[in-house]
């Protein structure tokens, strides 16, 4: 079975924002390679002119009045946050190092 090249596995992991250790990267090369090879069978199915199905049931977007209504309180919404400052989530610096 064809393994997925290590550089490609690393590139996908970065896109997915997943830290993978060297063992995990090696396993992914083989496992993803095998699964993707299996997917490739789909290429043989003739689908020209077939619309892609995005929803299982016909759907019309339902609109509602644009009116304020009760929702989660800020304290409930922030209750699970690892870092908060008043009613704000605290995040690390976006660029460079150091504390926010």
């Amino acid at each position, binding site marked *: 079975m064809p393994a997925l090249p290590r550089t490609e596995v690393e590139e*996908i992991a970065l896109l997915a924002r997943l830290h993978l250790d060297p063992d*995990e990267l090696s396993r992914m090369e083989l496992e993803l390679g095998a699964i993707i090879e*299996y*997917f490739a069978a*789909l290429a043989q199915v003739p*689908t020209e002119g077939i619309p892609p199905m995005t929803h299982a*049931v016909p759907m019309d977007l339902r609109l509602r009045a644009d009116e304020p209504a009760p929702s989660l309180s800020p304290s409930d919404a922030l209750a699970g946050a690892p*870092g908060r400052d008043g009613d704000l989530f605290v*995040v690390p*610096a976006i660029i460079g190092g150091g504390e926010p």
Partner: protein
Amino acid sequence: MTVHWLSAAQTAAQIASGELTASAAVDAALDRVASFDETIGAFLAMDPTAREVANDVDRRRKAGEPLGPLAGVPIALKDNLVTRRVATTAASKMLAGWIPPYDATVVEKLRAADAVIIGKLNCDEFAMGSSTENSAIKRTANPWDTSRVPGGSSGGSAAAVAAGLCAGALGTDTGGSIRQPAAFCGVVGLKPTYGRVSRWGVIAFASSLDQVGPLSRTVEDAALALEVIAGVDPKDETSIDAPVPRYRDALTGDVKDLRVGIPHEYFDGAIDADIRGALERAKALLVERGAQLVDISLPHTRHALPAYYIVAPAEASSNLARYDGIRFGTAATDAKTLQDRYMKSRAGFGPEVKRRIMLGTYALRSGYYDAYYKKAQQVRTLIKRDFDQAWHHVDVVLTPTTPTAAFGFGAKASPLEMYQADVFTLACNLAGLPGISVPCGLTGEALPIGAQLIGKPLDEATLLRAAHVIESVLGITKRPKAVA
């Protein structure tokens, strides 16, 4: 019958008549959990308010106040359904310690029906798996043979119901995750039509496929539960605005002139001989009761598995982007930059979840989208069209739920081998159709067998009617030996 083996409908009826109290029903369930859950491993958390809620039901009954259709019935929930003030983990380390600030719509509906929620049930992490072995928290055993898996991903739900630890449970089904464990554990599992039940408060896996449904010991209970949880929800744009019938009225025992499709694609391949035999008995029974068997073809069936394993991971990779270590869930607070926070926090996902995020990211990335995701969505249209054609000739489709009975722990050596366990259940989700697994006897090794019925959109009533007939003759009357 001992209280813990009563069906949900029987429990509700006995409580309503005063023959049984809600407190006694809930105590019986909690006693069972205390006695047997060390062996089974179904529960991840107990709801500390259960006894209080039961007492309140008893008090209101005495006061002559009106009660809901599930008043006092002990129910448990798959742990990917969020519960206000009760820890919800989806069996992942990523959500360890998270206490949701709200209830899922289905949970609100159960509470409104006066059900007593006793606890949260194990599953594969984020509902990704077919054996519950992917739970990051614990192992759940099959009550029929504790060396075997209960199926998955709603394995805790199926095992708890089969072991008499609760009167019924909710699960979720993205590719078979209600029906396959129901088959493995000898209980009824119903996946409603996509949109029939609100997904608000369901921890999202693959949003175009996920659906909530009941696991129960009887078809009547499945009908009752669906009456309670179905309906449009302003919080779920994909929920269907259609009346909710009294599904129990469909259980007439009459299948005369029902046209039952037998798709050869589901019977041609490798199926365990005992399962094949059980399905033959189901067919013969339906014919004896006046139904017509119609040979049909669903020619794109074999493409369902690869299409599913592109669509589901693609949607999962997007849905699971929310676990970023910022707003809730596990966070690597020692990270110095935002990107570092994301990468390190997300290391808390288990191997199968990482694999699916990687697969989904692979399939969706720029330049690959048409070859994978779009192609899979086109194949999905073809699979749905197969069924649309079939509905001109038949009312329901009958298949085995699984090609084998429950397998042993560690029996599936590779991810692809595990994915094959869903081979008969995936098409139903891809096409958005309702499906049910109903017990249909035991194998020579005394393991449960499930028969699957697939129906037209929103025609759960016909599924339940046919399943009820199969249950009445071929249903399992023995109790699982590990919990007898």
